[in-house]
């Protein structure tokens, strides 16, 4: 029998002391077996939301259920079915991987023998089986992240929460984690709630995405939907001569929604860009403007982010760091 693996969030609010409103009334519904991407810059309210859903903190108001259990009133039940890998990896650096995993299994009710067998399998799974005699304090960042993932899986969770699972990892380890997340989801049918500040990550992994900014969800849908709804395709034309760029913008201004100039390149934003290519080429030739190259760009999640928040995700991150 397939258990309820949904996450249902209704008007969830978190206000910290000092009137800091970290999460301002969010609602969403994660279906069983889905990878749900929760995308936003630092300080957007992602970790606060995860902390509420995993029972670490109480919501100020609103309601959330994980696998049908209320996170406010049925915390023990939620903890039993939810696996959690937080952004801050919480493992004792003096312990060894087998000790950590076996202890975790026993806490969840397994016998020592069962827990040890499970620990061995999980270490194989995350490719840490050959470093079991080393204290985890000596692990690299990627190894610690993988061990943390294994710890979150010990009790066979129905729902897995991953709070920025690849932040601080090198590109190779990041791809390893992506691979792992996808396989866990496909093979075990685990619902995965994943927060990230990387557009690429959300795009690659998530079946559906919610974009959170300033404690509010500003957009939600599949990656394709979001791109289709908010992003715009563009034709990018690079000229041999930088002087031609301005002329081109003048020539084409009536055809496009907006333009963006970057040195010798002009980005022309318009709907149905592919069909518009011949017309653009004709006009430019008629005006005797020499093109060096022409490319088409599909909308990206970055465009979506820009259109719903008014800033690029990178800028939002920079602003956060400056603040």
């Amino acid at each position: 029998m397939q258990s309820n693996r949904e996450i249902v969030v209704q008007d969830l609010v978190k206000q910290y002391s000092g009137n800091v409103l970290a999460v301002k009334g969010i609602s969403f519904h994660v279906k069983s077996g889905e990878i749900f991407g929760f995308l936003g810059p630092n300080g957007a309210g992602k970790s606060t939301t995860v902390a509420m859903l995993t029972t670490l903190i109480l919501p100020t108001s609103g309601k959330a259920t994980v696998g049908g259990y209320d996170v406010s009133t049925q915390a023990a039940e939620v903890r039993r079915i939810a696996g959690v890998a937080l952004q801050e990896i919480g493992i004792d650096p003096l312990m060894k991987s087998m000790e950590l995993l076996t202890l975790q299994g026993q806490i969840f009710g397994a016998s020592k023998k069962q827990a040890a067998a499970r620990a061995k399998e999980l270490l194989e799974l995350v490719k840490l089986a050959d470093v079991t005699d080393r204290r985890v304090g000596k692990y690299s960042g990627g190894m610690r992240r993988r061990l943390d993932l294994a710890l979150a899986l010990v009790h066979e969770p129905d729902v897995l929460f991953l709070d920025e699972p690849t932040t601080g990892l090198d590109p190779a380890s990041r791809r390893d984690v992506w691979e792992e997340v996808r396989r866990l989801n496909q093979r075990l049918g685990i619902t995965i709630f994943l927060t990230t500040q990387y557009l690429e990550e959300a795009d690659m992994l998530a079946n559906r995405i919610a974009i959170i900014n300033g404690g509010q969800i500003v957009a939600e849908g599949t990656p394709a939907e979001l791109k289709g709804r908010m992003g715009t395709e563009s034709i990018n034309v690079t000229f041999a001569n930088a002087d031609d760029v301005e002329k081109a913008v003048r020539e084409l201004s009536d055809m496009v929604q907006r333009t963006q100039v970057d040195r010798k390149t002009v980005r022309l934003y318009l709907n149905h860009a592919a069909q518009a290519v011949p017309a653009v080429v004709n006009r430019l030739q008629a005006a005797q403007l020499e093109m060096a190259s022409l490319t088409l760009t599909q909308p990206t999640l970055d465009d979506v982010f820009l259109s719903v928040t008014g800033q690029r995700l990178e800028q939002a991150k920079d602003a956060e760091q400056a603040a």
Partner: protein
Amino acid sequence: MSVIANSSLTALGVNRSARMSFPAQVAMLTSRSLTVMFRTPAAIIPTLIISWFFLVIYNASLGNASNFLPGLAGSSYLGFILPVSVVSAALSGAGIAGQSIVRDIASGYFDKLMLTPVSRAALLLGTIIAGAVILVIQTGSVVLLAILMGLAPKTGLLGILVTLGIALLLGVAFAGFTVGIALRTGNAGATQGASFLFFPLTFLTATFVPVTLLSGWIKTAAQFNPITYVLEAMRSLMNTGWQPDALLRGVGACVLLGVVTFTFALSSLRARTRRR
């Protein structure tokens, strides 16, 4: 990491409503704490050496002078001063429990455990019991050193065991205090500082001379200091013989202190684990 597809994960095989019994949880967490504590010998060895050092120094510098003190002449000064070393070894040993909790909070492992169905009280007890084991090793080694220096307690081996038992009680009571501070602050400096606050207590008492020789404010202070009664109980075992009143007062002082510190520790645990 493309292993999942071809590996077959066996189920953990647990009934989701299954739960480890409380004593089993305590035993498991105690063993985990001990493993970790033994991996940080730097936290244990210095306090051990200090305890030995004080025993040797006090005995060497005050041993002969004590012959001129009424109430001490003729009896063993080593037997008189040993309890001071035992008590300070017990107190510093108890500090390890608090340090251990702080370490878990700092590493984030404490929060990770909070996300499991583990009993919060078992977590606390496991750490305290592990600290107590270390403490018994520490105080035991101090007594062993005293025996090598010629200690011959009036109550023999049994008296030594009772002395260690009282030290254990005192240490566990004090561990409640350090663990409470650790949970309250989550800060290593604060916990160490608070442990240090108890240091004066070993001197605001009949440390070097019998309580009858004290006078003025220090005598008043000593009367309210539980350590006074612990020292007297241990000293009676060393130099006088079996004295039920003294033993009862010593044990009573530890229990009373323990009730206060454990109440504090539990309320600190609640404060830390309360969801806000």
